């Protein structure tokens, strides 16, 4: 199929698109698979997915200030998950450490202070599944 644009003339007040059902079919026709869509690649559960923006350097080197994080609230956080947690009424991004002693939120950046002793409970807001970083 080809599309022809007919230039406007006195009998055509507007350009018209005319489909011409002739000519050779494209050899690629049977192989067209649709374009790649980052949404389907990065978002597994649309209903539970939210986006947040990073402000600090606590998760360097992987996560930079101004990066956008894809957060899936339907996932259960495990040991070593990067999570969004609720700390003193604020949303923070940290790595979750879980062991027999309890749970702790740890910064990836070695220059940040070590966490306090693990606590019995933490409020997890969501699990980070991807980092969108502009270069």
């Amino acid at each position, binding site marked *: 199929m080809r599309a022809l644009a007919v230039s406007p003339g006195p009998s055509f007040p*507007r350009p018209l698109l005319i489909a011409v059902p002739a000519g050779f079919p494209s050899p690629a026709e049977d192989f067209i698979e649709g374009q790649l869509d980052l949404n389907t690649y990065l978002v597994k*559960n649309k*209903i*539970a997915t*939210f*986006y*947040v*923006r*990073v*402000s*600090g350097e*606590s998760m360097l080197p992987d996560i930079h200030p101004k990066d*956008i*994080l894809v957060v899936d*609230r*339907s996932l259960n956080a495990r040991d070593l998950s990067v999570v*969004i947690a*609720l700390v003193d*009424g*604020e*949303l*923070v*991004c940290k790595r979750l450490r879980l062991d027999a002693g309890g749970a702790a939120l740890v910064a990836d950046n070695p220059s940040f202070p070590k966490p306090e002793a693990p606590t019995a409970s933490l409020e997890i*807001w969501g699990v980070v599944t991807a980092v969108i970083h502009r270069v």
Partner: protein
Amino acid sequence: MTLLALVDGNNFYVSVERVFNPKLIGKPVVVLSSNDGNVVARSDEAKALGVAMGEPFHELKARQKQHPIIWLSSNFTLYGDLSARMHAISASYAKAIEVYSIDEAFLDVEGGQDPVADGRALRFQTKQWCGLPVSVGIAETKTLAKVANRIAKKVPHHQGVYWLQPGPERERILETMELEDVWGIASGLGRRLQGLGIKNPKQLRDSDPLLIQRHLGVVGQRIVYELRGESCLSLDVVPHQRKTLCVSRTFGTATFHQRDLIEAVAAFTSRAAEKLRHEGLVASRIQVFMHNSRFRLAEAPIMHGGAAALPQPTSCTTELLGYATAIVRAVFREKVRYTSAGVMLLELSPANEAGQLSLTDQRDRSRDAGVMSLLDQVNARWKGALMPAAMGFDRRWTPRAENRSPRWTTSWSEIPIVK
């Protein structure tokens, strides 16, 4: 036997705000109606302080002297997004769903093995995925599901899910409820029932339906049957075709000027036409109305308005604008302090069923359709990029929203910041 579940978001607008602003958790918080007029949502803490639903903003401000109460302007972009997510989760638990309002949906849960367990799972999932607390009320009819939902909310040990099954507990609940707590019974109806010697929902249920119909009409009779567990209000799975479409606003600032009114009415007309096209409808009649303040007793209430029949059913913004602005010019009066205006489109019908063409029609309808389709495509991509010049740029009519939260989920520049 049918079985319905009513899923209702607890203090919905406040709960949505708390998902993205956890500092609001545990504090008295209210959300105000558009233009920061009245309280439309209250946190439990605000309810405990006695803040009433519908309380005007100035009364709320007076309370601040005794207790600090956090107030927020409504953020419908945000509430709409979270509402869609919440209803999508509910739908996955139902054979069919009727989205009844932004924060309520009726679910067909007939045939489930354990409706209460399913309700708990739905509740847990909605809390985890969206951060929203919901209550689930289960029963055979919508009216009884509403009762069940009320119990689910009020009695803590049900943990947000309650199945109002036939039996002694149901009898006791219906006996101890107020009539006005039943869905569809306003205070007027309640008083008339009291006059008939009917004091509680149980007595209403056991009344003669014909007697109730004689005094209260079919609406009252329907409530009797619904309370008996006989479903009269079926699930509305297919949305009704709307018959009218109204866009109206209270202005952020009152005005004496015709220009402001024309700009406001142009904006409302443009929005109404856009909604009309989105729903695939055309209108045959347009009505415009303008009010002065209804809350200032010193001024006599004034409503200026007019209507026009359209030569052809239409959804074309520019055509509708011509009529709307002409009506404003015709009905506008000097020295009136206008505080609100609105546009109503009436006699709606599906665009593809539009009647025969009129020979006297002056407009190039196919050109209109092309321009409108382009307009909608551009605005879908860049919201509000193209607008009719008649709307002006001052936007003095823009409703007040002095304390609105960011559009946390729909604008890249406003997503939450994490440390």
